[in-house]
């Protein structure tokens, strides 16, 4: 018979319980969604790179190496790969020869290309409406598309190392037979080798390659943006998934605890009577533990299952974004069980804690009720006596129920954090493109030669040089540029917008922030080509958030790194230059990068929108549950105040006014929390990646976040006020008489 009590009470107080059920639903859904996603991508990624022999490193030399000799000497698997960029208007297809030992292609659909055939990556195919069996014309020759492929070293398919986002409309990869590919490359200007194996002494290997074959590029796997970015993204997603769902779960447990504790307090007479009639503690507890059980049943189970159901499209979206093939469909039972059962542990513990107080009391104490007696001296709060009566009452109301205000503060802080993360992330990407590629890097084209040049044949172009290093003691890749002293193409500015002169050595803000570097510090750099160590004193820091880079004048660059005076390796230009292909190692079109960003911004926006919606709902639910709890608890007082002649607006201020303070406190707390999160991401997650985001809680982001949360707050406030309006003093008096 007693088992009917919880269901009836849940139905009576449906808004409060529904709020908690929604929160539990969300935490289970989030956990299931993200953990299944992360596990799927993680496992598929690991299987892919293992089974298809991902490279340990690759290198480019000017002359061909003796593959057998080097392989044997260093106990490596080395394979040469032909590579050619086919430009079709504003699109580029990077075609490789089929490899057999290292970075073997995975054909997800179709077959490996035979003669006169080509396999392309599925994203490029989809974005350009190309299907298996279609004919694809390359310089007048017809190739049949034989299948879709994935390459273990092109997981994140970006054209240039500097690109931030893949752009399948304008760039893709493909493979074909070496014989077919050779017809497009009349003579090789450099040689690309992929290697797999463990090298104990890279310096020796690099020295040998450099001295015998002239080493142009040497890149280890962890340094390869096209490989490492996926791992980094997964590392980033994992804590986010666990932290977000964990926090929502804890908040809902605390809310449940507060609601249950109040409920038990309000029912003390009935419970005491049941005790008196002979029901045991155990029987009564069993009745009250049904509350968390029902919440779990209605929240966690659908949440976990819907999360599992939704994870499939999300996995598909992410694998296409990260270009990880789905080799095995993984059903992470463990993750799903955690998503469903961990809320039960939290919920039932919270329920038990709320009931425990009751279990300790005698029958008489329970019947008598402890609620009112809890107002002891400390609740007099004489300090507030100087304030106006209404304000004093409002403050007292909040201070008497600090625990729920703390929950509100934390809930709002957390929602602020998520929203700011979304807004700042979105605008950081925008700023990166606008600031970096409009105001700082003014050139439109970059060309890098495969050999040092002495004479600049292009009068409108500007010379520069580039060398790759590792920051000593870290895995960070640092690129040092030598540019014209009075460069018109690269305009480095300080944090106040002042133009920096290139008298000394200037590093980017992203490098400085990641390693806590200041002007006056000295950094030690190890050359990636020959392993030589250089110590450079930092003179200034430029407000550049892309690239772990350093800049100096070209003359100084040549002098420090022992290069010939006036030599340079690349050109910056406003216009497209007609440089023979065979003399170049790479070229970059800035428009391409901006276009890639714009195409991708839309898909990122969709993820961000989910984030906005979630934080909005989170804050709305938390504020609503807490305010309706306050109103339910103070129903009688509100009724009395109404009889005395208080207006509804005044009562709303008195009983819900403290929420304004908590809301503002929560919001203010969210901003430093956001900064801590960002610095964690910068330091722990993006530390080893040549990429940085200027994620600042600037005025605009803070303002927009505030407005969104304020709307959630005002809606819940409006709902709260409506509940205050609905309290009838006549009914309160009648209930009392009964």
């Amino acid at each position: 018979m007693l088992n009917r009590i919880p269901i009836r009470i849940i139905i009576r107080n449906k808004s409060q319980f529904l709020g908690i059920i929604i929160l539990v639903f969300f935490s289970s859904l989030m956990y299931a969604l993200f953990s299944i996603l992360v596990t799927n991508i993680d496992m598929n990624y690991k299987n892919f790179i293992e089974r298809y022999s991902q490279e340990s490193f690759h290198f480019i030399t000017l002359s061909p190496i003796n593959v057998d000799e080097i392989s044997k000497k260093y106990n490596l698997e080395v394979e040469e790969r032909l590579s050619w960029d086919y430009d079709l208007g504003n699109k580029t297809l990077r075609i490789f020869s089929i490899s057999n030992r290292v970075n073997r292609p995975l054909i997800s659909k179709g077959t490996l290309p035979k003669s006169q055939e080509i396999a392309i990556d599925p994203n490029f195919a989809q974005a350009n409406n190309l299907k298996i069996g279609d004919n694809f014309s390359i310089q007048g020759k017809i190739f049949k598309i034989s299948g879709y492929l994935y390459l273990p070293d092109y997981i994140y398919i970006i054209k240039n190392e500097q690109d931030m986002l893949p752009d399948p409309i304008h760039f893709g990869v493909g493979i074909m037979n070496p014989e077919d590919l050779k017809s497009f490359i009349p003579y090789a200007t450099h040689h690309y080798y992929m290697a797999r194996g463990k090298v104990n002494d890279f310096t020796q290997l690099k020295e040998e390659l450099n001295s015998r074959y002239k080493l142009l590029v040497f890149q280890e796997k962890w340094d390869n943006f096209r490989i490492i970015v996926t791992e980094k993204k997964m590392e980033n997603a994992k804590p986010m998934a666990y932290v977000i769902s964990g926090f929502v779960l804890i908040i809902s447990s605390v809310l449940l605890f507060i609601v249950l504790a109040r409920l038990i307090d309000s029912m003390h007479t009935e419970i005491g009577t049941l005790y008196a009639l002979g029901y045991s503690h155990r029987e009564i507890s069993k009745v009250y533990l049904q509350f968390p059980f029902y919440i779990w049943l209605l929240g966690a189970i659908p949440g976990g299952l819907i999360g599992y159901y939704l994870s499939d499209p999300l996995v598909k979206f992410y694998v296409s974004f990260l270009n990880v093939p789905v080799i095995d469909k993984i059903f992470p039972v463990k993750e799903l069980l955690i998503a469903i059962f961990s809320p039960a542990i939290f919920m039932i513990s919270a329920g038990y804690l709320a009931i425990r107080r009751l279990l300790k009391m005698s029958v008489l104490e329970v019947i008598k009720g402890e609620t009112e007696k809890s107002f002891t001296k400390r609740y007099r709060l004489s300090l507030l006596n100087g304030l106006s009566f209404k304000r004093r009452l409002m403050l007292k109301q909040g201070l008497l129920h600090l625990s729920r205000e703390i929950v509100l503060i934390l809930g709002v802080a957390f929602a602020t954090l998520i929203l700011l993360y979304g807004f700042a992330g979105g605008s950081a990407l925008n700023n990166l493109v606008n600031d970096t590629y409009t105001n700082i890097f003014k050139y439109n084209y970059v060309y890098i030669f495969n050999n040092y040049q002495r004479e600049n044949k292009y009068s409108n172009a500007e010379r520069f040089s580039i060398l790759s290093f590792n920051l000593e003691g870290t895995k960070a890749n640092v690129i040092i540029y030598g540019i014209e002293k009075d460069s018109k193409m690269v305009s480095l500015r300080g944090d106040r917008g002042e133009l920096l002169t290139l008298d000394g050595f200037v590093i980017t803000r992203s490098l400085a922030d990641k390693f806590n570097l200041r002007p006056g510090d000295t950094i030690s750099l190890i050359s990636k080509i020959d392993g030589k160590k250089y110590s450079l004193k930092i003179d200034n820091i430029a407000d550049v958030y892309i690239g772990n880079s350093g800049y100096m004048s070209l003359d100084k660059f040549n002098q420090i790194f022992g290069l010939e005076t006036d030599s340079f390796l690349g050109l910056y230009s406003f216009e497209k230059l007609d440089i023979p292909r065979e003399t170049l190692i790479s070229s970059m079109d800035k428009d391409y990068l901006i276009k890639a960003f714009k195409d991708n911004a839309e898909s990122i926006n969709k993820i961000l929108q989910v984030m906005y919606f979630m934080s909005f709902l989170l804050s709305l639910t938390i504020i609503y549950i807490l305010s309706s709890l306050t109103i339910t608890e103070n129903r009688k007082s509100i009724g009395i105040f109404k009889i005395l002649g208080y207006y509804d607006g005044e009562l709303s201020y008195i009983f819900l006014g403290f929420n304004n303070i908590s809301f503002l406190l929560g919001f203010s707390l969210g901003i430093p929390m956001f900064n801590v999160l960002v610095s964690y991401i910068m330091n722990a997650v993006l530390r080893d990646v040549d990429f940085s985001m200027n994620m600042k809680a600037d005025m605009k982001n803070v303002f927009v976040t505030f407005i969104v949360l304020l709307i959630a707050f005002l809606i819940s406030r409006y709902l709260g006020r409506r509940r205050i309006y609905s309290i009838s003093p006549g009914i309160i008096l009648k209930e009392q008489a009964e």
Partner: protein
Amino acid sequence: MFIEVSNLKKSYRVGNTKIDALRDITFALEKGGFYVLLGPSGSGKTTLMNILGGIDTADSGKVIVDGEELTALNQKSLTNYRRKKLGFIFQFYNLVNSLTVYENVLSTKYLSEDGLDPKDVLKTVGMWEHREKFPFELSGGEQQRVAIARAVVKNPALVLCDEPTGALDFENAKKVLELLENINKGYGTTIIIATHNTAISKMAHKIMKLRSGELTEFIDNPSPISAEEVIW
């Protein structure tokens, strides 16, 4: 007239049954009097008090208090009426438990521009010494004295007391009645007490007897006794 009630009707529906709580009530009262509404439980006393207090509405008829036609007012105007003109005293005190004695009194003082000094009023009811206490720390009689202080501190034109002594022992009940008498005399406040206790009715200038929602008698009492003389 200070209060004019004419042809007042009010009924409730409980399930399928219609209960006539007030049937065609008509009476008029002057300002500054001490009145008693006498009747057994279920006679309609509380319903009439609630309508006079603006916390319930009439089905038909007219109620005018101090020039305001309550039956024509909307909820906001009724709140205004309670705020400016009315004090309430209940059988179960209805103090706000989270507020101290002093704060409970301040809670109505706040509503009035020309109210009385809370300190004086608390002294008058003998509760100044207990001003820092919470309601649960007080006896029933003490709580009712605080409720009286809360009702009169805003210097209302009318104080409605619904069974103010119903939950008190004789001694405490007499103290409460003395206080109400003093307030009536001292501040000229009109007081209406709803009670089932006939002994109290002897204090009134006018006695209205209610039975099953009907005003059965309207008695003028030319020589009311003092609270001290009331015995039951």
